[in-house]
């Protein structure tokens, strides 16, 4: 009985124990199956997840290319600078560290405060922290002697974007500055890693903001390198796993001429204005200067807020690029264009003379348009009209012209459009026309408006760049590669445009002859600059009126306010008879064109020719 019961009990236990152990065995199988699923079936995705955990890629900033002038000399280069870089994870007491290093490196209170603020976060993740930028030679020497005392700091080489001519080339080069969205997203480096980029520039991840630096940012930028760190779960950098060096940006070869640009700047002095010079063979822009100016070195490498505010508030607007954006009435410098238009449309010829009594009366309403010289120039033909700058001749010629045709002729000379292939933020301005006037002022076009345009006044305005382009087309007898700053960027002139400027060679020769007489003859309006050089120069000066006045007396009154004084303009090319360079100069409130702007143009031409 007892035995039976024991046997029943034993069997009962056995079956129940086996049942439970079978459950355990099933659990084992489930675990094994799950491990198999993780390690074999999904291996690749988990392997990738593990790599994503530990690999931390950061970009390495490349050096920007240099910007070179036409002889290959650097206008902007990368200047080494030395920063004191610390390794916070090796510094246990930052305050003590600062006390120790203060006798070696000068630190302002702001430096110290900023350092301590960033310290904790950087120490935690084993990242470097800059204590002081742009060390002096003395500080470097002092540190190097004592470097054995500072195992937790070193001097790191960084760069600054520096020009040796920071003011002279400010507008054309433009500046660089740190950018908040300077990510190269093609690099497969997550956006959040860019704050840890390995910097080559002291100023951080920089980008061209204006000028050539902006236009050719891509070209200059180079390619970022990559460093892949191994990090732990707290984001602490453990070691470098992979390293791909950055590739320096390409150099930019420009047509700019350092010497000529400096000459232009010096010649303008502290007057406001602009100078543009173009190489007639290539269309390359040799000089592009605007005054007043500012220092791109300061702007690119950290300028105080006060200094920046002063520049912005300066009534002379130093940031304003007068060469590309200044709108000036071309004044008498437009006369050759009007003459060419007259010749093309057979409204005039070289022989025909008119009487210039010193004024022109508009037949429709009897309104009088005055010349600059009381009593006039008597009998004038086209050559004389250009030479002595007869207003009457061109009033009359404009009066005979159809404004629509004239507007389209201006357009073929580059007015009303941006003419430079690669200039930053060039103003294309506009060409006045009946439609334009109606749209802007809601009044119809009057014949008198056309008459005013005949002497480059009224609604007609142009930038110094457009004036330079126009005189270059004229100098090259109607054919000019599109102006450009950078070599190889010129586009050939639009074919239909050049068709419109098809004077006969005889007309071109005569035109050049007449414009040479403006300077070289004893009666030319710009004869005052004749003896400043030992080669012949052709050109046309102009005096742009800011207020329309009928008498000299009235002007003398206005003249007391400097900002209302006439602008002085000249466009010139030389040496004649085979010109190589053309130049336009505008000097704001400079008055008489030939005498004031003329010498600047001559200095620039001389500099370009005496290379």
């Amino acid at each position, binding site marked *: 009985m007892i035995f039976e019961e024991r046997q029943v009990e034993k069997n009962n236990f056995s079956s129940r124990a086996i049942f439970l152990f079978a459950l355990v065995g099933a659990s*084992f199988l489930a675990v094994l199956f799950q491990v198999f699923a993780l390690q074999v079936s999904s291996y690749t995705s988990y392997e990738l997840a593990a790599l994503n955990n530990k690999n931390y890629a950061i970009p390495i900033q490349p050096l920007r290319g240099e910007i070179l002038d036409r002889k290959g000399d650097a206008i902007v280069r990368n200047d080494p600078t030395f920063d004191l870089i610390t390794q916070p994870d090796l510094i246990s007491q930052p305050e003590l560290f600062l006390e120790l290093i203060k006798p070696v490196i000068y630190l302002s209170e702001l430096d110290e405060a900023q350092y301590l603020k960033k310290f904790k976060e950087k120490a935690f993740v084993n990242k470097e922290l800059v204590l002081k930028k742009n060390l002096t030679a003395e500080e470097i020497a002092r540190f190097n002697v004592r470097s054995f005392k500072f195992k937790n700091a070193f001097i790191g080489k960084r760069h600054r974007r520096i020009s040796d001519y920071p003011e002279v080339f400010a507008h054309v080069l433009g500046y660089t500055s740190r950018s908040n969205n300077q990510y190269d997203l093609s690099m497969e480096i997550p956006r959040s890693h860019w704050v840890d980029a390995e910097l080559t520039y002291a100023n951080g991840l920089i980008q061209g903001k204006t000028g050539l630096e902006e236009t050719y940012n891509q070209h200059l930028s180079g390619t970022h390198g990559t460093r892949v760190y191994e990090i732990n779960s707290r984001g602490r950098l453990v070691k470098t796993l992979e390293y791909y060096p950055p590739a320096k940006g390409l150099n930019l070869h420009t047509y700019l001429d350092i010497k000529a640009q400096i000459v232009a700047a010096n010649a303008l002095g502290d007057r406001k204005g602009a100078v543009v010079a173009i190489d007639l063979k290539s269309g390359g822009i040799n000089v592009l200067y605007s005054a007043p100016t500012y220092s791109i070195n300061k702007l690119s490498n950290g300028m105080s807020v006060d200094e920046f505010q002063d520049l912005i508030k300066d009534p002379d607007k130093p940031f304003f690029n007068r060469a590309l954006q200044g709108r000036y009435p071309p004044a008498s410098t437009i006369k050759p264009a009007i003459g060419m238009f007259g010749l093309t449309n057979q409204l005039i010829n070289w022989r025909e003379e008119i009487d210039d009594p010193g004024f022109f009366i508009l037949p429709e309403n009897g309104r009088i348009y005055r010349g600059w010289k009381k009593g006039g120039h008597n009998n004038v033909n086209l050559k004389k009209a250009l030479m002595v700058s007869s207003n009457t001749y061109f009033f009359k010629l404009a009066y005979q012209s159809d404004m629509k045709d004239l507007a389209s002729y201006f357009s073929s000379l580059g007015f009303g459009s941006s003419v430079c292939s690669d200039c930053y933020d060039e103003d294309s301005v506009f060409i006045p026309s009946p439609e334009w006037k109606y749209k802007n002022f809601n009044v119809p076009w009057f014949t008198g408006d056309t008459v005013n345009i005949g002497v480059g006044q009224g609604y007609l305005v142009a930038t110094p760049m457009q004036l330079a382009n126009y005189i270059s087309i004229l100098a090259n007898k109607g054919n000019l590669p599109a102006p450009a700053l950078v070599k190889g960027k010129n586009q050939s002139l639009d074919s239909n445009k050049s068709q419109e400027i098809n004077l006969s060679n005889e007309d071109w020769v005569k035109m050049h002859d007449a414009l040479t007489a403006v300077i070289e003859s004893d009666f030319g309006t710009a004869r005052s600059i004749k003896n400043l050089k030992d080669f012949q120069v052709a050109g046309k000066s102009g005096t742009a009126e800011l207020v329309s006045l009928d008498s000299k007396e009235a002007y003398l009154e206005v003249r007391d306010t400097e900002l209302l004084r006439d602008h002085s303009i000249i466009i010139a090319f030389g040496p004649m008879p085979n010109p190589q360079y053309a130049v336009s100069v505008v000097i704001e409130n400079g008055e008489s064109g030939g005498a004031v702007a003329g010498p600047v143009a001559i200095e620039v031409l001389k500099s370009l020719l005496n290379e």
Partner: protein
Amino acid sequence: MNNRPSKIYFDPYLFFSLFTLSIFGLFFLYSASNADTSIVFKQAVYIFLGFAIMVAVSQADPDVFRRTSLVFIIFSILLLGITFLFGPEINGAQRWVRLGPFSFQSSELLKLALPIFLANFLFDKRLPIQSREIVISLAVIFIAFMLVARQPDLGTGLIVALSGLFVLFLSGLSWSFIGGAFIALIICSPLIWNVLLQPFQQQRIATLFNPESDPFGAGWNIIQSKIAIGSGGIFGKGFGEGSQTQLNFLPETKTDFIFSVIGEEFGFFGVAILLSIYFFVLMRCLYLALNARDRFCRLVIGGLTLTFAANLVINLCMVVGLLPVVGMPLPFISRGGSSLISLFFAFGIITSMGTHKKFLPQ
């Protein structure tokens, strides 16, 4: 058999498989602790001590455990009370009791005392066991569970409860009762979820089903554990080469998640070998249980072994993402003195019960 007093009670299969597990465990711990030799050394001392205890305990006759089972469980409960009154609070829980230079988790003792007590209470009862015994047994189990669970240590509490329930089941609890209890459990599950479970426990269960919902918070552990195991592949990344382990992406590498370290560094191959050893240990224990000398021994071996198995399976399922995260070490491998000593103690009892044969009265 004449020289009975000099006989050493010893099961070579259990001894050597546990020895292998422990030695492997030291290597795993070395890697999991980023080569911290002091941790490994301390663990080695515990293992040595553990084997000594196991061998010593296995010499005792099973009757010793039977006769002392009531004292043992009262002592365990008293210790839990002391823990509750005087134990230091660590991470919001009172689990440890300090005795001189040693401190250990008092709940570990209850995992041993409860099944032995119940085995003693039930082994001489007629089949099927009566309601009175069931009620008493369940009451004791419930008290033991509540004492541990309120520390709070729900994981260990459940293991303690399971250790009792295993014995109750093995001693012949009627299937109809089990079925009824099961249905009652399902009906009460919303109540359990809402009333008994703390919010963090609810979250752990929710995380199991969707770890990606909070990858840097509640889901972090299980996500990193899966990445560690998965990236180990078939042969693993090599000893000390697991990036998840060495760069601290994997949490609790020395304790709860040490299996993930093994998975990462030794791959599927290593995992299969490890599981085989555990499986061998369990099969050996089953064999010992089935061939034990009496019902008491069978119940004790079965209860202790299944408790060990439950502990092991819960840890494994947790780290591979089949169960919610509960604090549960991997037996014989995770760092921790209390757990090791209590494990060796349990296997000492198992050896004793499995090797002592009853001699028919002469």
